[in-house]
């Protein structure tokens, strides 16, 4: 009965209802769009970071990440590969990672030396796409090398030149061999441009006397698979001298940045939420003011004040639900549209693409952010409507009728 009455009232005052719904819908869709923008930037940043070189998960022998010692390679690479295959992870590759010294004619530079499988590596990471001069390693290469532009410049070598790598082999003895620079990476990322060199896995295996052993297993995964696979690997490999590290266990800075910015965002958005709630309260209060006369008449006709208050509350809730629904439809459509079209920011920031950020932002939204936002807008609009309802409950019929 009372629902029907409320429904009729909402429909009767179409304009007022529309304004209230619009206020909520606009607020919610703005919030959803902003989250979409924010999550789009962050997710693409994190994806790019993982795809560039480090992968989503790395598996080493225990402690190797912090203290790489070739005397402790991955205990059983075949077993790890088997586990990955069984779990359905397709993009993985193995590497040898060590410190080395590149010696040019009269200078030397210390760097991180990676031995990679040229074929598998290109399926997992996008390092090959960062080569700005020359080429990436190819299948069948012997002693070839790709290194960062700054390191190459400091060594005074360019593509086609030979130089020597000096490193400690698996037994701790100094080993050295001649390599030819075939490609230079100019990524804009300091850790790569200065201090990284990549050579074929087989060549590094020979140099370091590894006899088929590898040190790192790199797996690239969709975000939702990272946690379950990590848990599975940790369970299966526990106690056997392995470490399973997610990308942010190894390089926490970007995740921290994202968390910091999300924190900043939560403050921003809670202010927006406050404005939306105040707007809703305002419109509902205004409309009760406007309807004083009507309420007075209703009370005079015998409608109890609590009943009236419940009526107003239900009306507000209906408007709230309608507003939230409309806001979700508009907001998610915006997110969806800009996911496909993309927001091109390349005008504002020309070189940003170097730092794992695509200048064309494709919006996407995390489920948590969606749920938190929708439920807080819903809650805010209901709470905002309680104030007018409370006012109605205290109404004196005679005064109300006289109210203009």
């Amino acid at each position, binding site marked *: 009965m009372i629902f029907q009455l409320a429904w009729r009232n909402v429909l009767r005052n179409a304009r007022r209802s529309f304004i209230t719904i619009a206020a909520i819908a606009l607020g919610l869709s703005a919030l959803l769009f902003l989250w979409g923008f924010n999550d789009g930037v962050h997710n693409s940043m994190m994806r790019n970071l993982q795809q560039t070189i480090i992968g989503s998960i790395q598996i080493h022998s225990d402690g190797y990440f912090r203290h790489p010692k070739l005397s402790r390679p991955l205990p059983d690479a075949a077993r790890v590969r088997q586990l990955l295959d069984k779990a359905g992870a397709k993009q993985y590759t193995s590497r040898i990672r060590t410190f080395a*010294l590149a010696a040019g004619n009269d200078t030397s530079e210390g760097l991180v030396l990676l031995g990679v499988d040229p074929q598998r590596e290109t399926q997992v990471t996008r390092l090959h796409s960062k080569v700005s001069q020359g080429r990436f390693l190819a299948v069948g290469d012997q002693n070839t090398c790709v290194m960062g532009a700054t390191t190459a410049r400091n060594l005074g070598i360019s593509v086609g030149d030979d130089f*020597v790598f000096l490193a400690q082999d698996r037994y*701790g*003895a*100094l080993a050295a061999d001649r390599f030819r620079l075939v490609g230079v990476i100019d990524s804009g990322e300091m850790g790569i441009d200065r201090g990284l060199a990549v050579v074929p896995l087989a060549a590094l295996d020979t140099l370091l006397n590894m006899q088929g052993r590898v040190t790192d297993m790199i797996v690239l995964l969709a975000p939702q698979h990272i946690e379950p696979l990590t848990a599975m690997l940790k369970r299966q490999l526990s106690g056997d001298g392995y470490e399973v590290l997610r990308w942010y266990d190894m390089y926490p800075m970007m995740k921290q940045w994202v968390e910091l910015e999300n924190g900043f965002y939560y403050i921003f958005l809670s202010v927006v939420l406050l404005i939306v709630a105040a707007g809703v309260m305002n419109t509902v209060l205004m409309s009760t003011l406007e309807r004083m006369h009507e309420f007075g008449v209703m009370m005079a006709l015998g409608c109890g004040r609590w009943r009236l208050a419940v009526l107003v509350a239900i009306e507000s809730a209906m408007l709230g639900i309608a507003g939230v629904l409309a806001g979700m439809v508009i907001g998610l459509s915006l997110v969806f549209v800009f996911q496909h079209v993309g927001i091109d920011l390349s005008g504002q920031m020309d070189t940003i693409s170097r730092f794992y950020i695509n200048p064309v932002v494709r919006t996407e939204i995390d489920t948590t952010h969606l749920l938190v936002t929708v439920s807080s807008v819903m809650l805010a609009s209901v709470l905002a409507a309680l104030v007018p309802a409370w006012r109605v409950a205290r109404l004196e019929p005679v005064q109300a009728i006289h109210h203009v």
Partner: protein
Amino acid sequence: MRRFPIYLALVISVLFSAHAEADDTARQAMLDLQDLLRSQTSTATYTMRVSTPEWQRSIRFEAWDDRPGKRFFIRIIAPKKDRGTAYLKLGGNLWMYLPKLERDIRIPPSMMLSSWMGSDFTNDDLVKSASVVDDYTHRIIARDAQSFTIESLPKDDAPVVWGKLVHVIRNDGIPLSEAFYDEHGKKRRLLEFSDVRNMDGRNIPTLWTMHPLDEPGKQTQLRVEAMRFDPEIENSIFTRAHLKRAGGR
């Protein structure tokens, strides 16, 4: 309380002056020890065996040592893979020659403390070995019928990492062991000397065993196969050109 260290320093200096004579004896014993094992110049052939729980390998090499000139030359003879690899120390620098590359490389500072040929000796041990007598102050702390013990403490400004060295030497001058302690008094490495034999007219220990105490099960044994004391060594041996020539063979 702030003055306390001054009193302490006074007390310590008084204690030390009382031992001045003992210091001289200890220092002389260290000089004698160095003279016994390295003489002024020497040539020798060694076999080095490195063993860990997982693997072991052995390396045979020849060495030319000019102690007063602070220079030496090492050439690997076996295994075949490393044959011709040569090291040259000139003053504070260490050069490595690799026959495969036909070029020499100066070992950079970042690799000076890396292990030499995978052993428990570092490249720095090769370069620094002569300065022990001068970088430390020496003191006899124990003596019995068979042997005496020298404690060596680094001088304040000596660029050495150890907190203390303890040498045990037989009364006839043959060394028994050398222990390396960190600053907190924890023993980190132990070098043992054994198997005394006659080489070129002197009795010297011919088996040197280094135990790195933080890596259980690992050790490096250095066996002196042949040694000649105070031969004439040509200057041309200690040159970078010789690295290439010796490596070529």
